[in-house]
């Protein structure tokens, strides 16, 4: 049998992974949830057919979205994670002893239960006792908070589907309000490469720039995401991602990482010219 998972990265580009078997398939209240097993990438999760994570390359995404802001703000105590039903962000956060609370807001409870069952390598993050799970719309959750969190990590799906509200100006504005004066927000910032992704990326960027005094973009290479070239947003009220990097302090924490290091941190904010120009046009 020749079974393949395929995702259209554009109308004309298809990305496929050979599948050994499908472990789970169900339509939840919000989206279609599927788990596959493959030889090349291990197990992987898709939502509405879009690749969310594979066991092989998830470390890149999760380390970059967590350690980059934590190395700038190692004192962060109260963390809010929006989305992240797979537990990968929580797993990386749990490496910091100084963190006091990790609130995770995921709209789809079924994603969490499925990940706990089939993706223990990331779902182990939920076991940390500092984690509290809220099954709610992120946009609704954040409305109630003011001057409360040190770090907000927006680990959203793409802006077409249940995650749409997490790319809106009202969401970023509410995040600004919910952060302390030295707070940081990082977000999954889409890709600059293919046209539709780039359009979504620029819309999000423009809205973040309008909501935060400091707004920068950094990048990583994630093989299973469209084009592989992926961006993250770093927005804050006070901290600069490079000038305020606490290199020494972070390295003394001796946190075990496979992708992130403080040299890479500095390099990741250096962007290709075409990306610079795109971003500059909406800033």
């Amino acid at each position, binding site marked *: 049998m020749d079974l393949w998972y395929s995702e259209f990265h554009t109308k004309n580009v298809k990305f496929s992974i050979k599948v050994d078997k499908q472990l789970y398939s169900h339509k939840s209240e919000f989206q279609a949830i599927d788990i596959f097993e493959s030889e090349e990438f291990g197990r992987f999760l898709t939502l509405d057919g879009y690749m969310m994570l594979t066991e092989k390359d998830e470390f890149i995404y999760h380390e970059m979205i967590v350690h980059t802001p934590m190395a700038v703000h190692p004192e962060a105590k109260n963390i809010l994670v929006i989305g992240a039903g797979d537990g990968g962000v929580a797993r990386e956060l749990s490496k910091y002893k100084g963190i006091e609370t990790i609130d995770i807001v995921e709209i789809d409870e079924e994603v969490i239960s499925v990940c706990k069952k089939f993706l223990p390598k990331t779902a182990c993050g939920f076991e940390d006792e500092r984690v509290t799970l809220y099954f709610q*719309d992120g*946009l*609704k959750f*954040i*409305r109630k908070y003011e001057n409360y969190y040190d770090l907000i990590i927006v680990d959203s799906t793409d802006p077409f589907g*249940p995650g*749409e*509200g997490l790319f*809106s*100006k*009202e*969401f970023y*504005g*509410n995040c600004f*309000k919910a952060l302390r004066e030295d707070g940081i927000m990082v977000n999954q910032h889409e890709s600059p490469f293919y046209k539709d992704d780039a359009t979504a990326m620029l819309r999000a960027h423009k809205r973040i720039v*309008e909501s935060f005094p400091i707004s920068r973009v950094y990048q990583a290479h994630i093989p299973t995401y469209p084009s592989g070239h992926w961006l993250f947003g770093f927005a804050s009220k006070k901290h600069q991602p490079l000038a305020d990097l606490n290199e020494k302090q972070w390295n003394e924490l001796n946190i075990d990482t496979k992708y992130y290091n403080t040299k890479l941190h500095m390099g990741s904010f250096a962007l290709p010219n075409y990306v610079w120009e795109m971003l500059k046009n909406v800033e």
Partner: protein
Amino acid sequence: MKTLKIQDRAPIMDALNDFISSRVVPFDVPGHKRGKGNKELTEFLGERCLTLDVNSMKPLDNLCHPVSVIKEAEDLAAEAFGAKNAFFMVSGTTSAVQAMIMSVCKKNDKIILPRNVHRSVINALILCGAVPVYVNPELNQRLGISLGMSLKAVEEAILNNPDAKAVLVNNPTYYGICSDIKGITALAHSHGMKVLADEAHGTHFYFGKDMPISGMAAGADLAAVSMHKSGGSLTQSSILLVGENVNPHYVRQIINLTQTTSGSYLLLSSLDISRKKLALDGEDTFKQVSEMAKYARDEINSIGGYYAYSKELVNGDTVYDFDATKLSINTLGIGMAGIEVYDILRDEYDIQIEFGDIGNILAYISIGDSQKNLERLVSALAEIKRIYQKDKTGMLDHEYINPTVLVAPQEAFYSEKELVALEDSVGKICTEFVMCYPPGIPILAPGELITQEIIAYIKYAKEKGCLLTGTEDLEANKINILKGGC
């Protein structure tokens, strides 16, 4: 449900399906010939849509003289709405309102109505020459919105004008406010007057549970129902309902005075299919809509500053009932005009709401909405308050100015006129409309006295960003007045 079996049909849709499968060769209009003659249009709107854009013909009946499938569909609609007859309308509820008025009023006949009517009502008076007798709708000072007509005020108008032919009632107003239409109907009928219900915002009253009473249920003689609003049909489609004591054949003649002879089958089938859906699922649908509106109202009220109002306004008279599916929000508490919030929602947050006026906004909630989008609206309103909140002093709050009608609308509109600057028009008689659109309720209508207060209001509305319409001068800096009048 007793009507289930019959209501589950859609005769116009069925006839169109049969027609398409019979592959008739078209040597008739429309000239795009099922889209083949206009490739770009077909690609843009979709092949299916162009295939259905056909002309009246025997198997598809004729809107002007319905005898088969359109007649059947109209009869089903009449049954679903509890009316004696129903007419499908393809020129908007404007055409239904006009047909309704022209069916009961002729030149110089009096009609009793509240002044906060839609412009289409006064347009009808210009067309037919009827004379308005305005009942002053009370004003809610805090919200700056006009309410319904009190029974007593209607009675007074009836006693002072025993020769009036009809009473027109908004059921409900744009904001969701209902008058005692049942009481008004009984009163009007006892004086030999007809009752017309403008139900542009009331389709759901016929199908939802625990809704304000519908025009037909209240005994009204005619009702104009905007199916394309809460009924879910295509824009521009509407239904005119006819009660027991009105001659439907005369109504049809009146409709045919102005209605197109090429009624669109896209619009007609949308009315047919929507009626079916309303009859079968309406109760559930509007239960969900009410719940969504309630959720949003509670969340918005918890932000503070805003006031999303509902049934607590009910006072047994000028607010006899309230349509709780409406999400009307007063914005004066955050020091902003409704129109300012309306503009910011669209320009900054990509959220389009129904309208904003001086003190309020209205977000239209329907079955097409999702929880996720409600969260966006609520969050955006919270953000607008955080970022833009101002001191509320100096906010103009009232929306209604009692008009002084000196000349009948038709006479004023067709008289010799003179174009003058707005500020030079005080004390003169206006010959055209001035209104903010939306909501399209006239500030001035033809034949009314222009006062200093009205000019100040118009200038304030302009300054806040309202789109002023109705005047010949598109900028509304100049206004037409009656030549030699006053």
